[in-house]
């Protein structure tokens, strides 16, 4: 983000366009203007005045009665500002001046007449600052004339906050933005002149530059000045501009270095020469663990990768990042050394990262400054300092630049340009002109190729494609046409994993479940209590400790989803999630990232409705019923009951081709918590669960993704006969055992026979279960006769009756 003043740009280029137009142009050059702040001119009838006298207001403690000197007259004004002081230059609004919120008229304030206002910035509409009056300067510098109208000197401006993309460090300044506008508008830049009164003693006789680290700092240039009045404040216009750049004014010398940086983009540094020893300035690498105090009074522990600026004896600045406490400009500074250097981006980046310092200077050097920009920046600063603070300047500059960085030259082929941009209207001559506008030297190599030598500040122009972007950008992206013909044959089938997941989504919805999507980053404490933390992938720099582990199972997400909704008034929740889980988890897998499906059921399986007085709660039957429907996707899983699975009770294991792929079961949270085991109670307490949650979760990765197209099976056209048998069985016998036994009786039958359970009643008192078997039979060849039917029924009856403790009750 860089702040750019519209008026400042106008110093560098003619801009007849309005601030709004410039905003639009910048946007389409790739500089997004995030904010535009309009600062109005000072209104008419507001004049400069100075404070002559301050008396207390006779009738009010907090008010003062201030005498202000204007053009040949004095005015007595009632003023409440805390910062009003003698000898200040202030903005005085006379009768009739239209301020932001009111027009000045004579008023009587607590018994004293007052017909003018000493303005705050807010009253003038220039900022929201109303902490006190706006101080324009002090009487000892003659910047203002008493009574002069301010509207001529304090004009309106617009401050843009511009998002400069990372590759365009060259645009972190007014000059940089002006260069872009110059290329866009094909309008010349006005580099401001740098008049300097020089002595005839060359700077190189005064000081020598010695570079011991020419990689960290390839170029160092310095000027030396003496008898400078460094204690002067900088003038109003400079302080005002620095304020809009977000920098506090300090003294004229420091302010100039900042000002020139905001103008040219090149960071500068000024040293008090009194504290430089040995007429030497230069660089060296820091020693390991060397300690250096930067001017923000912080002790910095350095490493060998850092560049230090040093004199004959000691380090005086952390190169390209921050000056040293030992040589900064003070009120008494008379002799100056002004540095303009170019630092290696990687070196500065490493140092600033490691030390955690991000300064206006480091920000520019680490993204790439202009190695050739040092000359102008140094002269501009020297000229401004001499103008503001006087002083004598030695002839020219002292410099070391042992191995000049070679200019980059790139070939641009017009054919390639046309191909990439999709339009062919750009000619070689036009491209050549366009690059000349960007300060590139161009030479046509042949009819199709242009050799482009890029300026030293354009670090982003590295290869042909970057030049192509420049053409597109300057001509405008709106010229790119829209091509809507496909160029690849459309033969690719859709990704089958994607399609499979869509099928899974449909499959889960048929049970009335709503889809959920949860954060995959979870609280490791949740995983720990669910006993699924082992092998979890954890984040080194989490956003919060509650988001520091990757979920190993959907279980944790499902519990939160159910809980959230139960806590917000739901009595029943039936949801599913298809999502990734990571690390080890409950279900063995060789991959550390895989897609699971999870289902959670809690509350009642029937919706609340006037016709249902006692809705059925979810039970193991819902879980089994859902899992049985996997056959719809032609997936044949085996569901093996188990007492517990992990922290779940009444559990099932889901097997596919003998591999465990999932589980189901109940996480209890009964109202009567004393019934729960210690473990389950701890979980119920941790998650604040007070009703059972049934969970199903399985890994979909081992399951087929290509779904079989169903194949037609012929069915019998003869009638189907149904016979029921009822047995009393002991409690330990399972339904599965009875059905299996019954089926074994009719294995060799020629008929198609199905056996199912149609009724079950548990007589707990007598510890018996009565169970009803339904036999359906059918022949492909004929209608079954009574003998054949009875034969089947009899076989089943006989076989089942052989099971110990089974009694036949009746045939129906």
């Amino acid at each position, binding site marked *: 983000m860089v702040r750019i003043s519209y008026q400042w740009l106008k110093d560098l280029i003619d801009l007849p366009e309005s601030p709004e137009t410039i905003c639009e142009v910048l*946007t389409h050059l790739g500089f997004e203007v995030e904010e535009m702040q309009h600062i109005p001119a000072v209104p008419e009838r507001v004049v400069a005045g100075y404070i002559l006298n301050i008396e207390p207001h006779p009738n009010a403690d907090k008010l003062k009665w201030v005498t202000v000197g204007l053009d040949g007259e004095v005015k007595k004004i009632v003023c409440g500002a805390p910062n009003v002081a003698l000898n200040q230059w202030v903005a005085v609004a006379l009768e009739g001046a239209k301020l932001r919120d009111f027009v000045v008229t004579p008023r009587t304030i607590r018994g004293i007449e007052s017909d003018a206002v000493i303005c705050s910035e807010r009253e003038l509409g220039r900022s929201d600052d109303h902490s006190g009056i706006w101080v324009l300067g002090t009487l000892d510098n003659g910047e203002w004339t008493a009574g002069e109208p301010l509207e001529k000197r304090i004009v309106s401006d617009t401050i843009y906050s511009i998002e400069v993309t990372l590759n365009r460090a060259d645009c972190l300044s007014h000059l940089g933005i002006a260069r872009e506008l110059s290329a866009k508008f094909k309008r010349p830049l006005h580099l401001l002149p740098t008049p300097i009164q020089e002595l005839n003693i060359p700077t190189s006789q005064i000081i020598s530059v010695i570079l011991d680290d020419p990689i960290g700092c390839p170029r160092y240039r310095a000027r030396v000045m003496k008898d400078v009045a460094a204690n002067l404040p900088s003038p109003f216009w400079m302080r005002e501009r620095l304020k809009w750049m977000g920098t506090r004014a300090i003294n004229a010398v420091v302010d100039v270095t900042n000002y020139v940086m905001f103008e040219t983009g090149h960071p500068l540094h000024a040293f008090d020469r009194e504290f430089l020893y040995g007429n030497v300035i230069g660089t060296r690498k820091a020693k390991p663990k060397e300690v250096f105090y930067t001017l923000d009074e912080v002790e910095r522990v350095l490493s060998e990768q850092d560049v230090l600026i040093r004199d004959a004896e000691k380090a005086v600045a952390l190169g390209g990042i921050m000056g040293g406490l030992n040589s900064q400009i003070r009120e008494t500074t008379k002799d100056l050394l002004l540095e303009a250097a170019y630092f290696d981006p990687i070196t500065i980046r490493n140092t600033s990262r490691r030390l955690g310092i991000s300064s206006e200077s480091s920000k520019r050097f680490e993204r790439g400054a202009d190695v050739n920009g040092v000359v102008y920046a140094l002269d501009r600063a020297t000229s401004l300092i001499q103008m503001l603070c006087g002083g004598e300047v030695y002839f020219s500059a002292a410099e070391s630049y042992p191995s000049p960085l070679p200019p980059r030259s790139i070939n641009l082929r017009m054919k390639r340009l046309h191909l990439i941009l*999709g339009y062919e209207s750009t000619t070689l001559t036009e491209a050549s002109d366009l690059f000349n506008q960007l300060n590139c030297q161009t030479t046509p190599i042949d009819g199709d190729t242009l050799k482009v030598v890029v300026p030293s500040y354009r670090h982003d122009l590295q290869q042909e494609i970057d030049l192509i972007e420049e053409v*597109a950008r300057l001509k405008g992206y709106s010229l*790119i*046409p829209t091509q809507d013909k496909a160029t690849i044959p459309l033969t*690719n089938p859709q990704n089958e994993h994607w399609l499979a997941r869509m099928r899974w989504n449909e499959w889960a919805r048929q049970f009335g479940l709503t889809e959920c999507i949860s954060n995959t980053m979870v609280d490791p404490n949740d995983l720990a209590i669910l006993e699924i933390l082992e092998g979890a*992938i954890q984040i080194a720099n989490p956003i919060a400790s509650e988001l520091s582990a990757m979920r190993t199972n959907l279980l944790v997400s499902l519990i939160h989803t159910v809980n959230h909704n139960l806590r917000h008034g739901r009595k029943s929740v039936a949801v599913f999630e298809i999502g990734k889980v*990571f690390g080890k988890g409950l279900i063995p897998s060789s991959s550390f990232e895989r897609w699971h499906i999870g289902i959670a059921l809690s509350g009642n399986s029937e919706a609340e409705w006037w016709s249902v007085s006692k809705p059925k709660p979810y039970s193991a039957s819902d879980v089994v019923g859902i899992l049985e429907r996997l056959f719809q996707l032609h997936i044949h899983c085996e569901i093996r009951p188990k007492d517990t699975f992990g922290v779940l009770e009444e559990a099932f294991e889901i097997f596919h081709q003998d591999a465990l792929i999932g589980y189901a079961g109940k996480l209890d949270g009964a109202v009567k918590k004393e019934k729960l085991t210690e473990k389950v109670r701890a979980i119920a307490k941790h998650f604040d669960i007070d009703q059972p949650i049934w969970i199903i979760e399985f890994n979909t990765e081992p399951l087929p993704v290509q779904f079989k197209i169903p194949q037609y099976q012929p069915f019998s056209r003869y009638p189907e006969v149904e016979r029921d048998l009822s047995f009393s069985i002991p409690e330990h016998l399972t339904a599965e055992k009875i059905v299996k036994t019954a089926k074994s009786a009719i294995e060799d039958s020629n008929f198609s026979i199905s056996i199912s359970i149609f009724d079950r009643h548990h007589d707990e008192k007598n510890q018996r279960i009565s169970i009803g078997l339904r036999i359906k039979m059918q022949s492909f060849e004929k209608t079954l006769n009574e003998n054949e039917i009875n034969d089947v029924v009899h076989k089943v009856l006989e076989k089942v009756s052989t099971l110990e403790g089974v009694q036949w009750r009746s045939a129906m």
Partner: protein
Amino acid sequence: MSNLEEHIRIAKQKFHQALQDTAPEAWETLKNTFLARKGIIAELFAMLAECTPEEKRHYGKTLNELKNEITEQIERLKSKVEFQLRPKRLDPTLPGKPYPYPRVHPLTQTLNRIVDTFARMGFVVEEGPELETAYYNFDALNTPIWHPAREKSDTLYILNSTSEYELLRTETSPVQIHALEKRGVPIRIISPGRVYRNDKPDATHSPVFHQVEGLCVDEKISMADLKGTLLGFYRAMLGSRIEIRFRPHFFPFTEPSAEVDVTCPFCYGNGCRICKQSGYIEMGGSGMVHPNVLKGVGVDMEKYSGFAFGLGVERLAMLLHGVDDIRLFYENDLRFLEQFA
């Protein structure tokens, strides 16, 4: 026989009295008294026999009228009683049976619309891991080593990382590299998926969100193809009046790069609250695949060129459904989810 008239009058009076005194359920008693073979009306008809032919005609008519009236009244009573006695019909104003009503998550719905739209343009889905390496997430995408996206303040890194995973991918762009390595060129894919950023959650930021990345590489692919593809896509998603606008930008893996704006689908460019009066809505980044990216995966960058683009699924879903807080997508509140039928 002039007293017949009097008899008829009395019978009529009697009936009306009886009608008032008799409970509706006793309608049969009324019928027996008045209409039975030996009932009051029959008796009166019998009396006609003694009349002159003229009187017969006159009183016969009056008697018939009375008989009809009585029959009608009794029938009315009867049907009233019968209706009340009939087995009751269900109150038709009662609410019906609440069948289960499953919903697809709005993000899945949006993702499906995106994928289906691109599928019609010949883009197929290609997916990649969420646990990534710095090589795929940054290096192979031409991200300079100093790029701030690599900072811990932007990217979530894995504790005890391995050569297989070092970080949570910050974009679905690494799938470009996996796909180019796996399928080579020409290629036309989209990669939807979850990405992670080191962002504190608030109304417009979620540390987890979804992106769809698109990639097309072939001979002679130009920026005009990119523009055409995105225009087609956004028109399919947001309506045929949508226009798109490219603005220059910088992304390490594309050059030239463009930020994609679409006409605000709420005001069609006139400016409204949703587009903050600009008439445009920023949808995501795009550009021509950087030659360094192609070179890195061994694609002949002279022969082939391509484009890539990315878009945020939550952003689009928020726009389509008027959702103003991104966190709603991950809270799984049924009061939210059930609105997206």
